[in-house]
């Protein structure tokens, strides 16, 4: 053979099995991208599903802990508005007489009652923005005051506010309502309820707000000192829901007060049913997608290994052990799985967390994102499960390849 005048400059890179796997994937860029895309969709769905279900469960648990009252009594025809304010922070105003509290406290089996009233601020110059303001009575309150004083370590004073976790104000900031500024004395932890987008104040502060509103020409259907929006009711331990519910309805009817009675258990059960239904759909969808992805990957890997029989036989002839061949096949599958899982997780992080508020509003269900360490765990779990989908899908192809006689493999590959 003729001598060449020019010596080639050889590559110095090591040609390990993973390098060969990378070369194979790079040379089949379209196929590799499609497979990674499939795994990315799987990873995105799995992680998103896990975050959604965990957040909804967290929201549910938060709701159970935060509701505090066993019954909530609101003016007739305002149950939906009240639930909107309670669960989603939708601004709402509705009032009835303050004597309702006294009437309810006299019913047998009821141990505590406390009034609340709701004011909706405006989105005009007089107010920082439109938000639900919730006034409570510190003397009798057993719903809001305990967790406010738990976080503040003191009672809320006149002129002070506590803001929900989704309002972007820090302690010391001021908020303006109807021309007057109020100081933010604290921020609440996330609850997954409407409380997250509400502002809390005691009755004295609320009266200030209402006076200022009146000066600005805004007349709420409210008689100062005589109206409230809701009464929170605490019943005795082991109470009979329907008995107390009936007693409340009867007593208010006798007093000529038209009201709706909302049982916490009913709200929790309804929300719980919706959440469980949603979680069921998420699970079914995730499992279906998982199965579909593994089947598709299996088919692609089987075809891929079939068309590469000759390459595998050549490696074997050159001295690759069966273990090395398995490393090559699983290595390629793992690279696809790992790459796809990382892409899917990155996309999920980009979509889920910046838009979590929007997602929770869209779902209309209590929604509390899990703590960072839990998110990290779920991300790792999703990464491992989807990353393993590739190797899992290539098991049977790999087994067939290594058990075949090399020459048969070579011939089939021709």
């Amino acid at each position, binding site marked *: *053979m*003729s*001598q*060449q005048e*020019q*010596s*080639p*400059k*050889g*590559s*110095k890179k*090591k*040609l*390990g099995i993973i390098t*060969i796997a990378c*070369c*194979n994937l*790079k*040379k*089949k860029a379209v196929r590799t991208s499609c497979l990674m895309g499939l795994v990315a969709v799987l990873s995105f769905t799995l992680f998103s599903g896990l975050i959604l279900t965990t957040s909804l469960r967290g929201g549910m648990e938060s709701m159970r802990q935060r509701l505090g009252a066993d019954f909530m009594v609101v003016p007739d025809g305002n149950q939906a508005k009240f639930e909107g304010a309670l669960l989603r922070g939708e601004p709402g105003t509705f009032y009835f007489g303050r004597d309702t509290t006294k009437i309810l406290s006299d019913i047998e089996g009821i141990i505590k009652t406390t009034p609340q009233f709701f004011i909706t601020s405006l989105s005009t110059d007089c107010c920082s923005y439109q938000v639900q303001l919730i006034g409570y009575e510190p003397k009798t309150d057993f719903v809001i005051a305990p967790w406010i004083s738990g976080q503040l370590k003191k009672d809320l004073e006149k002129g002070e506010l506590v803001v929900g976790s989704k309002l972007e104000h820090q302690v010391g900031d001021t908020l303006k309502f109807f021309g007057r500024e109020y100081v933010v004395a604290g921020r609440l932890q996330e609850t997954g309820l409407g409380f997250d987008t509400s502002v809390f104040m005691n009755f004295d502060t609320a009266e200030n707000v209402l006076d200022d509103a009146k000066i600005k020409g805004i007349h709420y259907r409210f008689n100062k000192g005589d109206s409230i929006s809701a009464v929170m009711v605490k019943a005795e331990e082991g109470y009979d829901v329907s008995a107390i519910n009936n007693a409340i309805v009867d007593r208010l009817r006798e007093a000529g007060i038209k009201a709706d009675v909302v049982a916490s258990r009913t709200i929790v059960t309804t929300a719980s049913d919706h959440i469980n239904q949603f979680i069921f759909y998420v699970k079914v969808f995730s499992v279906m997608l998982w199965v579909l992805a593994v089947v598709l990957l299996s088919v692609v890997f089987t075809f891929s290994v079939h068309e590469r029989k*000759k*390459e595998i*036989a*050549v*490696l*074997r*002839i*050159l*001295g*690759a*052990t*069966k*273990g*090395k061949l398995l490393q090559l096949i699983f290595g390629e599958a793992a690279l696809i799985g790992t790459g796809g899982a990382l892409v899917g997780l990155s996309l999920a992080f980009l979509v889920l967390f910046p838009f979590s508020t929007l997602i929770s509003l869209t779902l209309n269900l209590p929604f509390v994102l899990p703590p960072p360490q839990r998110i990290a765990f779920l991300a790792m779990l999703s990464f491992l499960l989807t990353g393993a989908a590739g190797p899992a899908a290539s098991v049977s192809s790999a087994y067939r390849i290594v058990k075949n*006689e*090399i*020459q048969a493999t*070579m011939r089939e590959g*021709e």
Partner: protein
Amino acid sequence: MLLEVNQLTREYKRGREAFRAVDEVSFTMADGEFVSIRGRSGSGKSTLLNLITGLLQPTGGSVFLDGENIFELDDRNYSYLRNSKLGYVSQVQSALSNLTVMDNVRLPFFLSKRDGEPSERAAALLEQVGIAHLAKAYPAQLSGGELKRVAIARALILSPELLIADEPTCDLDLQTTKEVLEFLASVAQRGTAVLMVTHEADASEYCNRTLFMESGKLVHIASGNPSGIFCSAI
């Protein structure tokens, strides 16, 4: 003795009947010997090579390479033996399509644990087979003759004791065939035994011995230039 083939047999089933593609073949080879195997198509030449390289399992008999019965070795040891002591040039195109020519030649070095770097030797081999300028090309860009040279360079990268070539001149023009045969003869002169299956009658001119096969059996062994004998034998 470098290679000892004893009563090597491979039986296949064709319908209900069994037939022997290789039938009790025995021969030996010493270091640096250049031996060719000839015979008509279907006479069992390639099957014999595939048995010797361990690509096929025998129905009977044994193959000793450097004193070790290759069929008694476990996968790890036999893979190592195939990697370090055997070079193999396949009848069909066998370069890995996703690797460059240079990486194809370097590849065997990395299939077992070794120190060092094979690039210089790979470059030298590519020069020897005349395709140094194609080091960075991919197999799809090469002709049949160039691919055959890649396979030869790759088979020699680890300086094997035995080079097995299955019709290395198949589909090559006369000039390239001559160059390949001369190169294989020079490999044998440098101490690597070469066992080659070929249809080329002229190939025997380059060999120390030529084995003739018919219906799976070794029917004749000739020394030197046996082309005339081959013609009369079949």
